[in-house]
């Protein structure tokens, strides 16, 4: 089957009906946005439930049990509760900044999925700069965290916002360098091309010795920092900053930050699965199932970190990134370049 995105497929069908071009554009845009939003909202709700259940398993508890089968509807109940909550805007906040911060965070989290291939042909748009687009959009999250920290007129929030900006900027660099080594081998920035270049299991980039596993570990560490999760959850360090950047948010605005956080975790896992674990490639099962299995496997790893490790201190975090991770990432990139050039393991 030839690869066609959802967007292109819808587009062709609509053109065939003969309605005006403007309407074709609009309908196909809205439909694909709604599909993606629906799937992701479901995934986010599931992830919240899963995290609670997993943490309960790690801690020898039951977790949510009463709402639905094994508490499966607990997140929906929580979401309904959050919608009903009063949306408090404290006095003296910077209103436009305070108001837009959660929206930007939320939108940025969803906008990434334009170029994430959920399966063979299940992609909204196969941009030829796919991975570059994703890196650019995920960076938007920092802006929203900074805005939330600054706009809240709260010292803890400000510290949290500043920390997250410093953290995400410094971990973005090794992450991109790690991604770059994969791009170097695939010879393309397009997500679909990257997946297709690892059709067989020994072609997965994680198995391309020796640069692959190193790049994968760098990516996982940097992605943990990028999504502000333990051991790098300094922006919202409860014991130091109470709640960090989202301390003044309540109701639906808080829910937006909260959901965006889980979507971001799914995003970095999906990108990790696509770049290193062969994306939707796999035998027997349908392609989307392989994609979900791999992605949820990585999500599990992130949750495992969270419920096992203590938190680093802010200066140790910076040192680790600039003095260890970044040199390692660059050395690894040079190694990958040499491997590509010499044709070693270049299957």
């Amino acid at each position, binding site marked *: 089957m030839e690869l066609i995105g959802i967007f292109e497929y819808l587009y062709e069908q609509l053109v065939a009906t003969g309605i005006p071009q403007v309407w074709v554009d609009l309908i196909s845009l809205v439909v694909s946005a709604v599909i993606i939003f629906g799937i992701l909202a479901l995934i986010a709700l599931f992830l919240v439930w899963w995290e609670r259940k997993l943490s309960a398993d790690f801690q020898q508890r039951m977790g949510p049990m009463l709402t639905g089968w094994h508490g499966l509807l607990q997140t929906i109940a929580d979401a309904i509760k959050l919608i009903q909550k009063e949306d408090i805007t404290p006095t003296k906040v910077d209103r436009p900044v305070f108001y837009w911060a959660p929206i930007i965070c939320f939108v940025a989290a969803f906008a990434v999925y334009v170029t994430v291939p959920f399966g063979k042909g299940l992609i909204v748009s196969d941009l030829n700069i796919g991975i570059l687009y994703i890196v650019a959009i995920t960076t938007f999250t920092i802006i929203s965290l900074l805005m939330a920290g600054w706009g809240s007129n709260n010292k803890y929030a400000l510290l949290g916002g500043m920390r997250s900006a410093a953290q995400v900027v410094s971990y973005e660099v090794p992450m991109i360098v790690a991604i770059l080594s994969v791009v170097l081998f695939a010879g393309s920035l397009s997500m679909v091309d990257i997946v297709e270049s690892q059709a067989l299991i020994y072609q997965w980039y994680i198995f391309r010795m020796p640069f692959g596993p190193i790049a994968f570990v760098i990516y996982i560490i940097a992605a943990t920092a990028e999504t502000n999760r333990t051991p790098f959850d300094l922006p919202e360090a*409860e*014991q130091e900053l109470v709640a960090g950047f989202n301390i003044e948010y309540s109701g639906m605005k808080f829910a937006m930050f909260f959901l965006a956080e889980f979507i971001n975790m799914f995003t970095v896992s999906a990108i990790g699965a696509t770049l290193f674990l062969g994306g939707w490639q796999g035998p027997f099962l349908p392609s989307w199932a392989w994609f979900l299995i791999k992605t949820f496997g990585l999500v599990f790893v992130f949750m495992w970190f969270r419920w*096992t490790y203590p938190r680093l201190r802010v200066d140790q975090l910076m040192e680790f990134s600039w003095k260890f991770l970044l040199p390692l990432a660059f050395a690894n990139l040079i190694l990958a370049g040499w491997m590509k050039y010499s044709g070693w393991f270049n299957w």
Partner: protein
Amino acid sequence: MTEGLRTEEFQVNMGPHHPSTHGVCRFILTMDGEVIVRAEPVIGYLHRSLEKICENRTYAQCIPVMDRFEYCTSMSCNEVFSLAVEKMAGIEVPEYAEYLRVIMLELNRIASHMIWYGTTALDLGAITPFLYSFREREDILDMFEMTCGQRLTYNYIRIGGVSRDIPPEFIPKCKEFLATVDHKIDDYERMLTENPIFMVRNKDVGNLSPELAIAYGVSGPSLRASGVKYDLRRDDPYSIYDRFKFDIPICHNGDCYDRYVIRIKEMRESAKIVRQAIEQIVDVEPNTGKMVKANFKPAKGEVYSRIENSRGEMGVYVQSTGDTKKPLRVKMRGGSFNQLQVMPELVKGVKIADVVAIMASLDIILPEVDR
């Protein structure tokens, strides 16, 4: 680069209700970015005037008030007040009651250290250890509950003995607990002791020199972590502690990591003491002692008694005029008070995250500070 940029210090009000101030302590932190320039503790948010309340109660009625003095180790509070009055009035406590006291005190110390272990991990961002240590603490509380009906404020150790004998199912339950507790503590250690993140957060953080510790009157595990081998159970033995063999663990750096190691070792030592006491108690004739009545009047005098609590030296000073049923003056001394006083010295120049780590490692509890 920074030329022309103006930076200024700002104040952060940490507490009185903050997730990691272990009660209601308030710190006024003057900060330069993330670095602490000055820290000023503000106490008194949990003041209940316990000393004054005691002065308006009969001696027997003071024991439940003492329970509230340091509610993580209520047994120690009972014990220290009973010791003071017994010393003043010359009351003999039967051997069996002394054994029960030691068993309860040491179990309570383990329970208290388990709270410390859980909250320390929590303060450093690791959530799971908290649940693990509270699981074992639950077993200890069950034992207390079957003995005296209470889980937090026991009112068990009374002037002249203990309130009642242990039930027959206590000893098997206690033996079962002691058989597994070492493995459980191994579990705790596997989670944190060798964890590189935990080590980098705690090593060389909040170094407390022995001189500074003695100058501020720091006692207990925090003092022993600085290399001063001082334990009232050995140096000023009370009750029947001289009958048991146990080590006093000691470290030399005085940083947060050493204070962690000390307390983990102390849990094992306390378990050792309870094991010996359980073995020896079967040969002693059961007699829980004769408790004093409401009209009890000790002779004129004053006395200071002190014991080794899980948070340092716990002492109580009692003065009696000899002609009333109530003490003239009761003064309590808790280890946490001195540990909190040394905090501003330790947190100068560290990051805000270290304030939390140092406070957790000193094991400060606010009811003991404010009284």
